[in-house]
């Protein structure tokens, strides 16, 4: 078995990759993908913990996260398409009409 700490480290690493991607990307689609990565990282952490303490809850949480992620992606992509229709762009630098 891979030690628990390494597993959590991997999850954290994934989370960080996702976070950096979220913060640095300008394109909304890539931002969404980064959010996905972050969510998966979190789910991974749950599974790893479930395995560490041999409880089924970890796997159950993973299923939850996956469902929520799917739902959220559906809504987000729908919004994205509408925004593209309206503003003709998905570049966050130009989508700033909520200003002030």
């Amino acid at each position, binding site marked *: 078995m891979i030690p628990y700490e390494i597993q959590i480290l991997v999850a954290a690493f994934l989370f960080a990759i996702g976070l950096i991607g*979220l*913060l640095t990307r*300008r394109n909304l689609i890539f931002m969404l993908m980064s959010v996905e990565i972050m969510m998966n990282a979190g789910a991974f952490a749950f599974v790893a913990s479930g395995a560490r303490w041999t409880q089924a809850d970890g796997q159950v949480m993973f299923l939850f996260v996956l469902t929520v992620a799917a739902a959220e992606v559906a809504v987000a992509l729908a919004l994205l398409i509408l925004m593209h229709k309206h503003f003709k762009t998905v570049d*966050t630098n130009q*989508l*700033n009409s909520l*200003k*002030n």
Partner: protein
Amino acid sequence: MTQPIWILPALPFVGFLVLALAGRYLPKKGIAATGIGAIALSFLYALYLGTAFLSDPAHRMEFTLWEWIRIDSFVPSLSLSIDSLTYIFILVITGVGGLIHWYSAEYMAEEEGYARFFAYMNLFVGFMLTLVMASNLLVLYLGWEGVGLCSYLLIGFFYRDPANNYAARKAFIVTRIGDTALLIGLLLLIREFGTLDIQTISNNATSVLGANTALATAVALLLLGGAVGKSAQLPLQVWLPDAMAGPSPVSALIHAATMVTAGVYLVARTHALFILSPLAMQTVAIIGALTLLIAAISALFQYDIKRVLAYSTISQIGYMFLALGVGAWSAAIFHFVIHAFFKALLFLAAGAVILALHHEQNMFKMGGLYKKLPTIFWTFLIGSLSLAALPFISGGFFSKDSIIWYALASTNGNILLWTLATVGAFITSLYTFRMIFITFFGTEKTHVHYIPGKTMTIPLIVLAILTTFGGYIELPHNIAHVQLFSEFLSASLPAVSIKSTLPPEGILQLVVAILSLAGIGLAYQLYYKTEPTYKTSPVRQFFLQGWNFDKLYDTLFVRPFVWVSKTNASDAIDEVFDYVGLQLKKLGNTLAMSINGQINWYLASMVIGFIILIVFMIW
């Protein structure tokens, strides 16, 4: 006794209402008839009341209209009363007032606002009657301010020229300063007596205020402050010369015969309070004496005929104050009556001259008029003789002479006052005849435009007769024993107390008489023998401008006031709050910069915030 004496002031007020509301729809004759009629009716009614009154002058007539204010036991009502002092004033106000209204029918005929003029004049007479008939000091104050209002309206009658309105404002504000002193005096009286009823105050004066106390002096001096403002005495005399901006009948009625004597009335009416304070009496006398001299000297240097008369009025009222100050109460009132006759006469005659020369007021541009305007000349001359107090042939002699005598002879009098008064008499006849010689003699510099008609000349003649023969009702003791006037007043005013050892009256009278004649003689030398021309020099400017009191007040009061007012015009306190508000707004704007619509920025801040939270939690 209770008679409907309220009709007396009511008639002019009704006249005012009719003219104010319906004046524009009436023809000229109708307007004049209403205006003159209201005053004439008042005069006739006063005569009618007089028949009841003269049979026993000790009686009072009273009438209370309604309760004005009621606070517990302080109940000033609208109460009117007539006693002998009031009655004399009523006769002068309505009689002389009536003549002036009659005169104005022709004088103002060509001017715009005929109805407005008579409306204001009637309103004035109404308020003046209220003032003298008031039986408590609050009603008196009502009349007091009312006549001040009418004075303001009439000085600024020719409203198109802003200078006139400025003069009116000046008059109102200067008198208001005096009025404020009077008001504070009333407040003090309320505190001490609990009432403003004049009779109650007079009867209880000694017990409540005490003789010769600081309180009594304070009350008297405050009342004096009001009197000084209204009567244009030192130090509030600066408004009267400028008040000449109004039409001549206004100057005659308000600024010669009646309103400016309201101060004299006030002091006489509240004599019970003044008697309690020798200091106050002395102040009255000194103010009178100084004013009469300062004004007389100023009159000597004027070139505008109306301003000569204005300073002359200030001076003559100074004589009245002098008389009041030495306790010669009825002598002061006597001079008031005679002065009303001859000063009104002089103003009206001067007005006639001005009108005849098409609004020329500079004496040095007149001349040679005695042939062209004979009636006016003779009436003017008669008035001037009275003003200069020529012995025996003028009423002015009898009234002024008794004042000068009492200035020395009364227990409060002294040689200094007598000297000032006598020198004043000399200067009076000097400036008076200077005025006559320059205006009526010499070469004619402006041609006569218009000869005034009967409506203007008859009142002049009536006044001339009154001023000549009016004096005979009160002769000095060393000549004859005719004391009709002071006997009539004895019910209202105390007699003057005289010193025990006196210099011979006859000799002093002679001195005064000689000086009056000397004044005429000097004027003859300077202004008849040689062609008068107007010269200026710094000294002459000083006296021309009334000893520069205007400049003094301007620097001391007006400039600082306007400066403070202008500097703070944008309200410094408000600006402080505004500044605070502005800073807060700026702060808000700065904070709002963090809402820049950039999604990445929001995310980054969320992450940072989260990290900070975690750090706090671990620690």
